[in-house]
């Protein structure tokens, strides 16, 4: 006998396994899809509240919005303002939310909610090459201020070597305990140290701009933005806190708005103000996937990007290979008899929709009632096809009746037995009935019980949240199931049931050997 080489087969199996596992791992790594369904990720929910009094004219409210702030990733945003039109516009590189209404009167409140994922621990992606900013021209109120500014700058300039150290020295001058005369003069005219710092730096031909940041602290309300200064050091913008001298972006600071434009503009209203509330919450990591990195090559395999309706269909469909794996294992390795090869999977799928106890109960009930009706049908001498069709109709009646009874009894889960595949049940009843006539009730119990056992096992495996999670989020793992199924197709050893079946022969063999020895 010619034996074909096994090598290509095992190569395919290995490739399937490796391909499935490697793709899954890559997608886990790059798309942050968790292997565990329960993984939660912390996010900041920030709510900006805009209040103003409208005076009956058309209203436009514009709020500066964060645009990819350093250390955070936007995950969702939504606006809530009844009766207002809302859109996000980008002007001069600044993102703004714009709310508009033709006519408004009295106190108005607009909410803007956004969620941010903390990505501090991630490596910061390379900043896009920014065009070199230019220092702005500075005007001072009167010559005394101009002189004072020049003096202060001179002092700081002497003690510094570059843009960053100059900024540090300037901050030191304004925050020291005994403020010198020139600095005091400047502070008297302009109380905001941030504005002063910007002016001085621009005067020294170092580009500087204001930044509005939000300190994130859990469960804070009525917070306002803090004005900070970004200094351009020749390569990138460096953040300085003009009140403390702190350099760089602190961990809990979210840069909400950059640039000199005002954060909030309201036309058609007065007394406008914005305040912020924030809360630290956790959301399932899975919810984050849909919102991120759609352009990645790995997301091609994500079913999350399909419409919800199709997603739920795939959710069930992708469980089928697991059911098939169970059937193959139970039949080839264990050697369990089932009625119909893949009928147990379909039953298990139905159990997923009902629930185990109720599902098994109603399945047994429907089949038992079907068997009783079938014995009557066999006396009517119908042709096979019409008899099975009759059974299908009867099975539908039985299921409807059970659902109604269940509903009357308050078990609204009774409705879900409609998920059973009717045609399959009708065939099962027909087969069982023939089996009963030809081989007796014992064989019916063996095969029916075997089918039910396989169905229950498949159900147990398929209902595990980890299995549903993995098959749905990592469809490529089904390649591993495929490889296992193919591998079992090559198993030529004994089935577990055969170890029992041939047990008597082993005894005989031992007896024979003993006899031969004697």
């Amino acid at each position, binding site marked *: *006998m010619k034996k074909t080489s096994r090598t290509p087969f095992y190569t395919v199996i290995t490739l399937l396994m490796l391909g499935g596992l490697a793709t899954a791992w890559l997608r886990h790594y790059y798309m942050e899809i968790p292997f565990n369904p329960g993984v939660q990720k912390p996010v900041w929910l920030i709510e900006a509240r805009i209040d103003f009094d409208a005076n009956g004219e058309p209203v436009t409210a514009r709020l500066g919005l964060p645009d990819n702030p350093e250390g955070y990733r936007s995950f969702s945003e939504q606006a809530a303002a009844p009766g207002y039109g809302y859109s996000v516009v980008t002007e001069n590189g600044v993102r703004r939310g714009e709310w508009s209404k033709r006519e408004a009167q009295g106190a108005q409140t607009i909410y803007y909610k956004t969620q941010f994922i903390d990505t501090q621990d991630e490596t910061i992606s390379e900043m896009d090459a920014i065009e070199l900013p230019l220092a702005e021209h500075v005007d001072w109120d009167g010559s005394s201020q101009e002189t004072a500014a020049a003096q202060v700058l001179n002092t700081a300039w002497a003690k510094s070597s570059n843009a960053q150290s100059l900024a540090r020295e300037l901050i030191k001058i304004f925050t020291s305990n005994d403020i010198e005369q020139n600095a005091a003069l400047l502070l008297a005219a302009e109380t905001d140290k941030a504005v002063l710092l910007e002016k001085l730096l621009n005067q020294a031909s170092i580009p500087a701009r204001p930044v509005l940041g939000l300190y994130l602290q859990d469960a804070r309300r009525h917070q306002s933005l803090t004005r900070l200064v970004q200094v351009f050091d020749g390569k990138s913008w460096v953040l300085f806190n003009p009140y403390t001298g702190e350099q760089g972006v602190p961990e809990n600071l979210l840069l909400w708005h950059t640039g000199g434009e005002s954060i909030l503009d309201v036309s058609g209203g007065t007394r406008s103000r914005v305040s912020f509330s924030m809360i630290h919450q956790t959301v399932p990591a899975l919810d984050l996937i849909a919102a991120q990195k759609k352009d990645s090559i790995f997301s091609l395999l994500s079913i999350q990007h399909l419409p919800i309706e199709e997603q739920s269909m795939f959710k069930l469909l992708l469980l089928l290979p697991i059911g098939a794996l169970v059937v193959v294992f139970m039949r*080839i390795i264990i*050697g369990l008899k089932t009625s119909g090869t893949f009928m147990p999977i379909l039953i298990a799928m139905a159990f997923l929709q009902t629930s185990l106890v109720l599902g098994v109960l109603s399945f047994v009930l429907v089949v038992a009632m079907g068997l009783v009706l079938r014995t009557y049908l066999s006396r009517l*001498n119908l*042709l*096979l*096809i019409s008899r099975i069709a009759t059974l299908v109709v009867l099975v539908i009646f039985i299921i409807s009746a059970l659902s109604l009874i269940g509903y009357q009894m308050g078990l609204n889960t009774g409705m879900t037995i409609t998920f059973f595949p009717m045609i399959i049940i009708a065939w099962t009843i027909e087969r069982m009935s*023939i089996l009963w006539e*030809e*081989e*007796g009730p014992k064989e019916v119990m063996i095969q029916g019980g075997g089918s039910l056992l396989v169905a229950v096992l498949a159900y147990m495996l398929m209902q595990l949240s980890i299995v549903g999670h993995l098959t749905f989020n990592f469809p490529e793992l089904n390649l591993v199931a495929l490889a296992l199924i193919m591998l079992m197709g*090559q*198993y*030529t*050893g*004994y*089935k577990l049931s*055969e*170890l*029992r*079946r*041939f*047990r*008597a*022969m*082993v005894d*005989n*063999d031992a007896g*024979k050997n003993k006899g031969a020895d004697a």
Partner: protein
Amino acid sequence: MSQPSLMSPSGIKNWWNSWASPWQLKRMGILGMNCRNHDFIATYNPRRLFPLVDDKLKTKLLAEEYEVATPKLFFVVNLQHEIEHIEDKLMALEAFAVKPAKGSGGKGILVIIGRKNEKFIKSSGAEISIEDIRRHMSNALAGLYSLGGKPDAVIIEDLIQFDDYFKDYSYEGVPDIRIIIFKGYPVMAMLRLATHKSDGKANLHQGAVGVGLDIATGRALNAVQHSKPVTHHPDTKRQLNEIQIADWRNWLLLASRCYEMTGLGYIGTDLVLDKVRGAQLLELNARPGLAIQVANRRGLLPRLRHVESLKERMHRTAEQRVDYVMKTFTADGL
């Protein structure tokens, strides 16, 4: 069950002892289901030849062509409307068997041994009407007994005249001899005797007695019922080890020739003994069961591997092959 509970130590020990170790089975050369399907059926039985044995009508016509003895075919029913006029044809027959052409495992076989007025007498003695026969045929035509419910044909053939030799060994049914033919070599044989428990059927898993037969001599070796050794027929109480099949070489020849007839490498042949015409081929099976090993208390694998190791075309005719196995596959030998 009066057995000790599974919880007690002796219960666990009994339970553990009811399993054989796979290595033990392997050492004994026992053929398992997976190995049979993979190494023998899939390897030696080309799929396209299966219809020759799955369809009894084709087998029968083929057997007639190759002059392999088989019960005479009276007529075939192919269409439902033919059943309307079946009465005239059946009335002309004294005894006959109705078989679905694609039935498997003895399903749907109706045996009529005689008539009493308008009624037909079944082998069990029960009387049935022509209407019952019509219904049976209609079911069979619709595919009730065929694999996958495919439409079928019904064969009406001559009844085997039960040879008296087996009269005391079988209860209410025709005993048959199953011989496994591998590449034309008979490798193992058993006699299947119906019992009261098996309801006149010769299927081992329904409770028929299986008697292993020595390939070399046709003499009974061991007997089992439900996988347990028996020495006497449970109903007729006849001692089973006295059985000696007469004209054994002829049986083997008949079975061996089925290899040329079908081209299938691994088949089970079911033969019966007719009082007048001698050994007859009843049907062929391309997926013969494994119970024959239990009846023979011997694994099939050593013999199968031995045949595999033989040179191609070493024995060209059925006679040469049968002579070879009668020398080689003895009770004490391979």
